[in-house]
């Protein structure tokens, strides 16, 4: 009996897909399919309308100039250029191919910082060569039009500016990286309190400076990291406060975030050297979970041949 049933089932299955007697495809006639499809077109049409409508209403409640909440994005992250996979910069000084991506990445990044890009005086403002106070530019809306942006001179980056050395030191095994603090609208980093700083940073202390410092991540690497050169605005290894606060993409479309170039001139070759760079400030914090908050670490692996 069971076998008979199974046979029956097979027949039904084929019949279900195409029933030639009733002209039914998958249990429905053409007309029936048309009706049901029409229903779903209307139904989903309405739903799509409702969806788009509610999204539009929601967007009305959101300002176009600043986000409603920033609790997930602040405090800011600290990142480097070139952007690398697995936080590792590995190359052979004698092989241009091996460092080409880094160089290109740096070159591309610095294009906006060239002097010829900062000529329009309507957009750019000279904020001086030394760190100074925050530059408040009024409320976060476009009533006064777009906001001005502080110039950042590429020359300040000296050896790492790519102006003199198009290979950013990689050719000589003295790689440059650029350090920048993530942009956050309205965020005003506060200069650090003296006591908390390592002595090297203390030496170049300025009350309007967010200093950056790179050092060996591991104790045993301390002697392998060699000399570290910092190039920043006016020779300061840090970010001047006059670049803050950031007013957002809409009001400062050509905002230049301040940079610090770090050059490792005497790295030990043929081994992994782990470096940590940190920005210091009262409202710059570090987290165990987010290894890019206020600091980052990067590995150098320079091969001699």
């Amino acid at each position, binding site marked *: 009996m069971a076998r008979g049933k199974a046979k029956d089932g097979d027949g039904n299955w084929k019949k279900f897909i195409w029933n030639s007697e009733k002209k039914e495809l998958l*249990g429905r006639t053409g007309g029936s399919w048309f*009706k*049901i499809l029409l*229903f*779903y077109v209307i*139904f*989903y049409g309405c*739903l799509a309308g*409702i*969806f788009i409508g*509610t*999204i539009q209403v*929601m*967007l009305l409640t*959101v300002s176009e*100039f*600043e*986000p*409603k*909440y*920033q609790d*997930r*994005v602040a405090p*800011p*992250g600290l*990142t480097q250029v070139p*952007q*690398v*996979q*697995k*936080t590792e910069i590995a190359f052979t000084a004698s092989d241009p191919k091996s460092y080409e991506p880094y160089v290109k990445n740096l070159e591309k990044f610095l294009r906006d910082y060239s002097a010829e890009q900062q000529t329009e005086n309507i957009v750019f403002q000279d904020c001086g060569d030394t760190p100074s106070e925050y530059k408040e530019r009024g409320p976060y809306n476009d009533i006064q039009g777009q906001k001005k942006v502080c110039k950042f001179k590429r020359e300040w980056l000296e050896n790492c500016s790519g102006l003199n050395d198009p290979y950013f030191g990689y050719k000589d095994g003295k790689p440059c990286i650029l350090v*920048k603090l*993530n*942009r*956050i*609208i309205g965020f005003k980093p506060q200069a650090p309190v003296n006591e908390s700083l390592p002595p090297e940073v203390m030496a170049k202390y300025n009350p309007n400076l967010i200093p950056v410092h790179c050092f060996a991540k591991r104790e045993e690497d301390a002697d392998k990291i060699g000399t570290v050169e910092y190039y920043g605005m006016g020779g300061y290894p840090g970010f001047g406060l006059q670049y803050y606060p*950031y007013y*957002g*993409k*809409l009001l*400062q479309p050509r*905002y230049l975030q301040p940079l610090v170039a770090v050059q490792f001139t005497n790295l030990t070759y043929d081994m992994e050297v782990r470096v940590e760079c940190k920005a210091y400030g009262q409202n710059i914090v570090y*987290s165990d*979970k*987010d*290894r*890019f*908050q206020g600091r*980052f670490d990067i590995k150098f692996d320079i091969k001699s041949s």
Partner: protein
Amino acid sequence: GKSRSEKLHLKQRQIFISEFPDARAAEILARDGPNALTPPKATPEIVKFLKQMIGGFSILLWIGAAFSWISFGIQLAQGVDSAFDNLYLGVVLALVVILTGIFAYYQEAKSTNIMASFSKMIPQQALVLRDAEKKELPADQLVVGDIVEIKGGDRIPADIRLIFTQGCKVDNSSLTGESEPQSRSCDFTHENPLETRNIAFYSTTCVEGTATGIVINTGDRTIIGRIASLASGVGNEKTPIAIEIEHFVYLVAGVAISIGVLFFIISVSMRYKILDSIIFLIGIIVANVPEGLLATVTVSLSLTAKRMAKKNCLVKNLEAVETLGSTSIICSDKTGTLTQNRMTVAHLWFDNQIYSADTSEDQTTQSFDQSSPSWAALSKIVTLCNRAEFRPGQENLPIMKRVVVGDASETALLKFSEVILGDVMNIRAQNKKVAEIPFNSTNKFQLSIHETDDPHDKRFLLVMKGAPERILERCSTIMINGKEEPLDSEKAEAFQTAYMELGGMGERVLGFCHLYLPENEFPETFQFDTDSMNFPTSNLCFVGLLSMIDPPRSTVPDAVSKCRSAGIKVIMVTGDHPITAKAIAKSVGIISATSETVEDIAKRLNIPVEQVNRREATAAVVNGMELKEMSAEQLDEILREHAEIVFARTSPQQKLIIVEGCQRQGAVVAVTGDGVNDSPALKKADIGIAMGIAGSDAAKNAADMVLLDDNFASIVTGVEEGRLIFDNLKKTIAYTLTKNIAELCPFLIYIIASIPMPIGTITILFIDLGTDIIPSVALAYEKAESDIMNRRPRNKRRDRLVNEQLAVYSYLQIGIMQSVGAFVTYFTVYAEQGFLPSTLLGVRVDWESNAINDFEDSYGQQWTKYQRTYLQWTGYTAFFVSITIQQVADLIIRKTRRNSIFRQGLFRNKVIWVGIFSQIGIALILTYVLVPPSFPCPPRGFQYWFVAVPFAILIWVYDEIRKLLIRRYPGSWWDKNMYY
């Protein structure tokens, strides 16, 4: 004969006394095994457990877990940071399977245990002769060759050949279905062991007398043992609900696999890595499988089982709960199930008139006209000519509940007179009995002579009762209104009419007469001698007739009419006489007042039975003998053509044939039974119902359900519960399936539109196994929408638990609405954090890249990877919360399928509110309390709880409109496509 067998008995006893010591018995016991039926082979526990581990959706989840571990292995080898997420996910999935498996196993074990308690009844004892001593031994210690003694009331401990009997009668009904006790002797009367008189069978009972016998078969080798093994040969059919759930599992698994594979192909062709595609596949499987549902179904069924147990239906197999609801034919026993299982006086005839007596279970008075002096005379005979007595010490019990020593008819008469006259024993004491002739089959009457309670009347009163025609033969006068009148042919004719009428109602009729013995012939000192009968036994005065029947239980007619309106055919199957069977069938409504059998029509039209158009007869009374000669086709025809059927004089073996016949009609058949040899029929039936009081262990073992009060009406309550749970399971499944789409859509859109992942796999499990569990069980408490006993039983093939409409409506309409609501919340969270919807499209690769820690949002702000992940988790929480909120609306709309919620009442089912509060409570706990560092559900402002509320309201309103249109336009396109 007696003396010869006694000698034989003594001889044999001597042999055994000398030759059958304990040691020999022990040897045989070791060889043959204990004298007990081997219980039906139980599936080993481990197999049962493993079955739970791979049944249902478990396979899919195991596949998911396996994929998780594979991708963990690969990612670990590749050194991916997040590899361990997959390991954990696999572990969680495996845990889900194992925990739900353990749960299901536990549930099943629990319901099996209820039954196990039945079989653990007090061990039977047997009186055995061993080592020249009479010993009480547990019956399972008996061996072939043992000599056992039995007496009235004992259960026969093994198959025994009798070597000595004294007035021994056995009740073989559990074996042959014959309800009349059969006498047993030492004589070999027939070749067939079942027919011969000198064998008594295991598990039958000795009703009266004593006997001694030699054990000839023990344990499984007994006749009963062979039948029992036959019963276990009848395959267990899959229950309808098991088929439905299987169908549903296939459906959901089919959807899961096809969507999974489809999107695997899509993602591979969209240049996703194979590994990523596999991870998507896991997500899709997890989203599609309602992990908690099977557990929910089990809980709902066991809740109903509990409710049914309260109403005296003890369900052995959880799935039987629903089977009862889909029952379309009930084959019911008569005695004890439809009837009260006790003789009761139903009619009286005196003064040329028939009076009806109250036959209800709890009668305390009788309301027929008792003013006639004839009644006074009749009541005196009834009271005095009766040997039955109440057991002492029951004065506080209602009369109908008191235990009586005496046979069924005498018990009926005793209770009848006690109800009307009060203290019968006192009346008897005042009318002292001086002589008595008990009933015997040659005389067919019972007689006693009493002093009267009137101190001035010194006459003796002779009272007699017996077969009416025999009594009438002995009478020359008849009492009419208290006066003796000569019994002429006209009066005799009246008697005949009354006798036929009462007999035609299937009642057992007794005639009563009396005679005041003349004082001069029988002075006070007269010595009556019952052997020589020195007193008149003819020319008596006929007083009246009393008829008795085992009356239907008072709740049964109602229950039968409920069955009728519920489209359930009730077939009576009884071993009783056709006339009695038909009478009871008529009185309970199994045969309705207006319908006729072929024989009725023949009688009415005065034509031979053969000429009657069989189609005109709606009812049929089929005799067991006719059934024996019928072919399967003829039986089918009877079952098809007649709406009202009674099978009389059937043997329990024929019950199996009837059940099979009904099942050939495509019916879901419920069968009641109590005897051992009912077990094959009970097993064969879709739902076997054993009697809790009268039922044998074998019947209870074979049955799916035990009726604790043996009452047919309880079956009907069970049917109602079964139908309700079917409806409610539909609601539960619809509720559960809906959110699967809301869990699935995120994956699909994530793959296609490359947006950040809206919901995590673990978060899905929070819904499936956390917030949704209690609400879906709560739907099991929902009251019926309309009178479920007013519609036909569901058609096994057409009315599926999960039909196309249910799946489509849940998946493609409500599910999609939920997804839209959840996505609105998702986009709101991201927009308010800086990512406007337009920036989210196509960002997946960069978003998930560990190397990019300055990911730009719509405002130009830059995000580290961790900040993005944390935002993503916040999105999970918001999505989770939105689904939960909308599931509240889903829960409310699922309360009804057709009626407006407002008609059903929002607050009638309080458990739904428990469900809603638990749902929200669990969600609150998950999001606000349980926030350990790595928990992917970081809390976020409470406002996100409300984003989806408009969509929840939309779902409710839309469903109300759907129901309104269904009610307004029955049979319309809308009704056909939207009613599930």
